[in-house]
């Protein structure tokens, strides 16, 4: 299996990421992508993401390896943006490729639950010029618990 993990300030191109995984291959039956975007909820004007670089990369790699053990995956790509983003901006991309659709769906769902709840990111929201740190949500934790 090939895996690509990137934590970056730059935006990403979904089509490029898909074609990087699938080009010249005839064993991939299913490609699932999850792209997350910043929503303009309650007048949000910007979102700033901070992370713990050494831990983020190590943990994401560990979860990708776990996904690979649980599902027959051909390739996985995880891209997470950091820094200050605006409403409508892309923030995260997970691409999973497999022979079978259920594996691709479940692995993408599993990785997103990890990224949205357990990955060492901290978010600061800005509304009307005021910034505040986002508190951890329990509903997201419930999502992540589905996989235990």
């Amino acid at each position, binding site marked *: 299996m090939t895996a690509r993990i990137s934590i970056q300030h730059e935006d990403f191109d979904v089509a490029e990421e898909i074609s990087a995984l699938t080009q010249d291959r005839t064993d991939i039956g299913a490609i699932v992508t999850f792209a997350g975007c910043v929503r303009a909820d309650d007048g949000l004007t910007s979102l700033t993401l901070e*992370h713990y670089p050494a831990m983020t990369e190590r943990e994401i790699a560990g979860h990708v390896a776990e996904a690979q053990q649980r599902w027959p995956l051909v390739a996985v790509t995880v891209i997470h943006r950091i820094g200050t983003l605006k409403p409508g901006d892309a923030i995260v991309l997970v691409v999973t490729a497999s022979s079978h659709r259920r594996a691709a769906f479940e692995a993408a769902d599993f990785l997103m639950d990890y990224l949205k709840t357990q*990955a060492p*990111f901290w978010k600061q929201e800005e509304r009307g010029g005021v910034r505040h740190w986002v508190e951890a949500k329990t509903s997201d934790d419930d999502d992540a618990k589905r996989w235990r």
Partner: protein
Amino acid sequence: MTLLYFAWVRQKIGCSEEHVVLPSNVKTVADLVDYLRAFGAGYADAFADAKRLRVAVNQNHVGWDAAVGADDEVAFFPPVTGG
């Protein structure tokens, strides 16, 4: 020891990374927190409520009773909010 602070812990303390030499009686995360609280007002504020904090030693989440040593990287941060 390398100390890392993230999010509002970093803001309260006013730095993101520092290197400290520990006295020999600091053997656990809890000892370390007690020690750091005396560093200044920002530290006291950041470490005031231990329940609001999480800690990782060498990039692994650990509890307050985990051992810490001179070569460790210890990070303090609020509960992660994910991406």
